[in-house]
């Protein structure tokens, strides 16, 4: 027999209570891991948007405010230090339902390879994309989400551009090199313009959402940025040119409020679980006051009693933490998650190992907080008084 035997047997004393407390901790840690993944996804997206030689040009008052004329592209190409440019137009395509959301853009197929080189397009697929009028390059996560294969034809409808529907032939995939690229749906601008031609008299053609500009060296970022915005300062569609990082950070800042609320809810859950676990620990200790008094009578010291009781709380908490954090890692990283209208790219649940480890440590923290007060009180029990109560 050892103290470990005593700890283990005491946990088995009321199995229902032990199991329920463990599961309560497990569920809360699962939730907390999901919540803590949000900032790490945001950080991951930002980290992958730090190309030092790329600028994003959009309408001065925001992408949602207005588009830019496609004619701007050639003028920007002519600015000194600009070595490449691609323009993107938001399509907003829907495959099944609006909630199964993924970003879809019409792009300049001739320059997408050079300006978005880190997406690691397959050269053969990129060549086919350029030659196929209705060809599409699709992020691997979006392909997996809908069970698409190369060669499939898919039709996307939209509610942004006169409710047009377009049918595409999937000619290539975009590898999972970063959270955003793995969900993209890119197609030819020419195909898009053709579809909009019937609405030309309504001013539908000739517009782009943003430009991605490659420059020759990072030290020329501010020079080129100023030159672009100066060129269109007095036009009806003035521009705002930002580094890619600043553009992404600005876009993601729209979700900061939601993230904070979700994080707050998550930590309130942890606080609730601490209270539940503390109550369970207190009940368990209260029921065994006579045994604690007996152990102290035999000669067990305060710190030994304290260690025994806190160990029980820590064992339950660590078990609950593992049962919550490890499944969270595998379930949330199952690869099927994608953009959502509510959280945008932040719903790409890619839980890093660090969050799983943090989840386990939070569980241990819960165990310590829940167990330390009842254990300390029991360890400080006045033996003579306790014996008077139980005899």
């Amino acid at each position, binding site marked *: 027999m050892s103290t470990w035997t005593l700890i283990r047997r005491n946990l088995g004393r009321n199995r229902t209570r032990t199991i329920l407390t463990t599961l309560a901790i497990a569920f809360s840690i699962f939730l907390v891991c999901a919540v803590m993944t949000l900032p790490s996804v945001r950080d991951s997206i930002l980290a992958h948007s730090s190309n030092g030689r790329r600028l994003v040009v959009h309408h001065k008052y925001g992408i949602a405010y207005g588009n830019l004329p496609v004619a701007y592209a050639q003028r920007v190409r002519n600015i000194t230090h600009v070595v490449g440019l691609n323009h993107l137009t938001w399509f907003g395509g829907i495959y099944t339902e609006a909630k199964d959301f993924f970003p879809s853009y019409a792009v300049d197929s001739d320059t997408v390879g050079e300006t978005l080189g880190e997406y690691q397009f397959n050269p053969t697929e990129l060549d086919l994309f350029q030659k196929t009028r209705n060809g599409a390059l699709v992020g691997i996560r979006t392909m997996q989400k809908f069970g698409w294969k190369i060669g499939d034809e898919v039709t996307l409808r939209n509610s942004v551009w006169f409710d047009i529907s377009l049918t595409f032939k999937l000619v290539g995939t975009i590898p999972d090199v970063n959270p955003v690229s793995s969900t993209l749906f890119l197609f030819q601008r020419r195909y898009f313009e053709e579809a909009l031609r019937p609405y030309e008299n309504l001013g539908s053609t000739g517009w782009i959402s943003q430009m991605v500009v490659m420059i020759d060296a990072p030290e020329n970022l501010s020079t080129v940025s100023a030159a672009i915005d100066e060129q269109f300062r007095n036009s009806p569609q003035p521009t705002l040119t930002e580094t890619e990082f600043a553009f992404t950070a600005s876009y993601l800042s729209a979700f900061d409020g939601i993230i904070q609320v979700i994080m707050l809810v998550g930590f309130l859950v942890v606080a609730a679980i601490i209270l539940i676990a503390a109550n369970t620990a207190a009940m368990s200790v209260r029921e065994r006051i006579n045994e604690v008094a*007996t152990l102290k009578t*035999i000669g*067990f*010291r305060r710190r030994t009693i304290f260690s025994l009781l806190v160990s029980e709380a820590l064992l339950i908490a660590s078990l609950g933490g593992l049962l919550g954090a490890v499944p969270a890692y595998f379930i949330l990283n199952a690869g099927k998650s994608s953009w959502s209208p509510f959280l945008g790219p932040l719903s790409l649940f890619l839980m890093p190992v660090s969050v799983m480890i943090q989840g386990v440590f939070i569980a241990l923290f819960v165990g310590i907080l829940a167990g330390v007060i009842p254990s300390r009180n029991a360890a400080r029990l006045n033996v003579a008084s306790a014996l008077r109560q139980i005899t």
Partner: protein
Amino acid sequence: MIAVNQVSRIYRRGADEVHALEGVNLQIPDGTFAALMGPSGSGKSTLLNLIAGLDQPSSGDIAVNGQNLRGLSEDQLAAWRAAHVGFVFQFYNLIPVLSAAENVEIPLLLTRLSKADRRQHVETALSIVGLTERKNHRPNQLSGGEQQRVAIARAIVVDPQLLVADEPTGDLDAKNADDILTLLRQLKNEFRKTVVMVTHDPRAERYVDQIFHLDKGILVNGTP
């Protein structure tokens, strides 16, 4: 030898003081079976707790085999009890999730004995109380008398010089009570233990060497 010299114990209850013991003097030689008797509230259990090192007197001294217990810290008292004192309670106080053998082994966890040595000590203690064949049973599988014998085995497993028992027969029927008192007498005779027992049981007079009567915290008389 247990020497109690002018011992008083005062408890404070808010603004009131309760004089549980007042100026108690007694001596219990080694190898004696002594009983502390008296009505409820007379201070018997208080005196027993002081002798056993579970409490400190408010004044006076208690020495057990030359060790003055007054002024020892809580940890020092705990260490002294672990090595020198065995306890038997009225309601056995066995841990229900452990077997009889595991309950007996608990005091040995405070020693540096190896697992094999601990097992040997447990076997010896259980054989003394006649419960070797019940060593793997849990307390809820034992009768009251058997549980008390397991408790006695736990009390003697570290081979203490002093055994203290607080109403050891209080929860037992007549037959089992006699068996327990006989066992305690046997421990005193064969193993030279000093046994101090608090009891209301008049049968105890047949088994003990000394009786000390207390009333309202005062030692009324003591028989040699």
